[in-house]
């Protein structure tokens, strides 16, 4: 094999023809990097640039930082090797690497060095990282380790071999069917995290990864809060990019970042869902998805319900969204069956066994109430027969024995247990029937 040269900064393969043998990406980065990185005389030249021109105080300067050389990384992370630059965003830079001892591929995220300037950060970092490490779910990118080196705070995470949703949307590789497979997985991840008390706060297509098996993995949980930004990933780029990042944030997030809870994630999910279906962001007076593309009208309701401006009017839990989606999926996937179809499929004995297993208490109660009742009924019948035998058709011979004495104890039992038994059986009957109905709908 020919000796392929690699960029000492990002590890990308270099071609001798492109950019005169240098790394094109790094060359472009150099055009962006802030000048004060190390060298003296750091005043930026020219009339163009810089963050100081930002009028609004809420816009933070871009946190791009000079990416380290791979050699530096190898020194700072002796337990890792085979570094490969994967990407860079406002939240830091990510590398692919290999954990030597475990021989597994991981992703390493380095946070911008500027975060270390705030004194309380180290403590928050530890706390947040520990919380994130608890998020053990197949749809959430797992955190394996975290810490700090001389220069960087870092996370070591699960490496996802796939693409992010942004790439799929951009390349028009998403049909509504695919979207309907992806969204439930996001809901599961969100619900899991919310149950653990963790809000993502930055759900957007860039943070949603899909691996080669079609499994969804959500990245960067909790990072937004950790990095303490009121409006995440704001950078002084063209207005187009600014809107792009803000477009996923819930209204309450944009206005008062403090009263934000897990429902902000649901809003962001709604935006992503809309974008997956239509290719556009729901801005201003937007049209429901079914008017823009060929999708089930019932999806409109789901999307709109997530996009309610008022948090209390949205889905209150990600799991609710998922359930609604599943309802649509089921009915869409197959037409309802006839009851007779179902009945031939399952033997009554099996159904009975299943029903007993499902409602053991009810069945026990039913039996408990019914036995005395049965006993009383039998006894009643017997005493009636006996009374009839004892009483004669001819009243002149003598008075008939009062019937009350014969049947009294049994009557009491019937009155006592009858209603309860009746209610219990009625309940069981309903449960059995509902089960049968539901059973006929599932595959």
């Amino acid at each position, binding site marked *: 094999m020919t000796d392929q040269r690699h*960029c*000492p*900064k990002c590890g990308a393969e270099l071609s001798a*023809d*492109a*950019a*005169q043998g*240098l*790394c*094109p*990406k*790094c*060359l*472009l*980065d*150099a*055009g*962006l*990097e802030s*000048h004060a*990185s*190390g*060298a*003296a*005389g750091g005043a930026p*030249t*020219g*009339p*163009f*640039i810089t963050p100081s*021109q930002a009028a609004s105080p809420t816009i933070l300067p*871009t946190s791009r930082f*000079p*990416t380290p*050389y791979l*050699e*530096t990384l190898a020194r700072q992370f002796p337990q890792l090797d085979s570094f490969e630059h994967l990407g860079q965003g406002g939240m830091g830079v990510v590398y692919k690497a290999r954990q030597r001892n475990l021989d597994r591929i991981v992703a390493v995220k380095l946070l911008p060095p500027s975060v270390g300037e705030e004194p309380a950060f180290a403590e928050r970092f530890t706390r947040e990282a520990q919380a994130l490490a608890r998020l053990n779910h197949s749809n959430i990118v797992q955190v394996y380790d975290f810490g700090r080196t001389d220069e960087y705070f870092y996370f070591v995470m699960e490496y996802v071999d796939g693409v992010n949703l942004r790439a799929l949307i951009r390349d028009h590789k998403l049909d509504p069917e695919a979207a309907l497979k992806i969204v439930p997985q996001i809901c599961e991840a969100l619900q899991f995290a919310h149950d653990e008390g963790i809000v993502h706060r930055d759900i957007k297509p860039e943070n949603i990864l899909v691996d080669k098996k079609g499994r969804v993995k959500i990245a960067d949980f909790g990072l937004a809060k950790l990095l303490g930004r009121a409006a995440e990933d704001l950078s*002084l*780029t*063209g207005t*187009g*990019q600014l809107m792009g990042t803000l477009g996923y944030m819930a209204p309450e997030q944009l206005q008062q970042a403090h009263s934000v809870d897990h429902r902000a994630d649901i809003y962001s999910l709604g935006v992503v869902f809309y974008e997956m279906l239509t290719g556009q962001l729901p801005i201003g007076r937007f049209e429901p998805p079914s008017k823009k593309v060929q999708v089930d009208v019932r999806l409109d309701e789901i999307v709109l319900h997530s996009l309610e401006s008022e948090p209390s009017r949205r889905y209150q839990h990600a799991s609710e969204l998922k359930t609604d989606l599943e309802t649509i999926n089921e009915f869409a996937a197959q037409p309802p069956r006839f009851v007779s179809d179902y009945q031939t499929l399952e033997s009554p004995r099996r159904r009975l066994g299943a029903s007993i297993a499902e409602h053991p208490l009810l069945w026990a109660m039913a039996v408990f109430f019914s036995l005395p009742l049965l006993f009383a009924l039998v006894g009643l019948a017997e005493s009636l027969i006996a009374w009839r035998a004892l009483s004669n058709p001819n009243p002149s011979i003598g008075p008939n024995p009062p019937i009350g004495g014969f049947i009294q104890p049994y009557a009491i039992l019937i009155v006592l247990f009858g209603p309860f038994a009746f209610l219990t059986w009625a309940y069981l009957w309903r449960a059995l029937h509902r089960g049968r109905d539901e059973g006929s709908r599932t595959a």
Partner: protein
Amino acid sequence: MLAAGHRSSPDSRRALESLCQTYWYPLYAYVRRRVLDVHEAQDLTQAFFASLLERNSLEAAHRERGRFRSFLLTAFKHFLADEWDKAKALKRGGGRRAIPLDLDSGESRYAHEATENVSPERLYEKQWALTFLDRVLNRLGDEFIAKGKERHFEVLKPFLVGEAQQNSYENAARALGISEAAAKVAVHRARRRYREILRAEIAETVAGPQEIDDEIRQLRAALG
């Protein structure tokens, strides 16, 4: 588009010609993707530029306040859609060649470069980014050459990507026959000048200084 769009003066025309001279290849790569016949692709490219300069479409570009990169591709697409027939006639009827384009070397370049499975648009964007970097590096190199310091440029080039590693300054110093401290200064100056040129070149093709960073990011993204 700062210089090239303002008025239909000889300056603006020259600026446009210069841009076209540099950025014709990405357009060629694009049309080669869409049109499989080499000769037709070459004719189309040539005719497009002739038409562009002739009708001073720069007015439109300037009005659009967009970026030259996008404008060029859009104009080309329109041209391919409607104007091709007219331009064909123009060419046969002796349409002059507005700018000399080295189409043959363009073809061999296209043939050599790895043909990845990307759309014509993305190929265009990628080639644009690479062409742009070439232009910037060449400009920087020319400045060094003009000062008789071609060797300096060769040695300092690898430092353009970022802060250097430990012992590389030593090597550079030795290669140039200067002290390590002087080498560091030279690197710093070269990087600064590189950055100036890069941003100035971008400024030529966007509507205003606030768009420079964004354009750089987009170019970077285009490299995939």
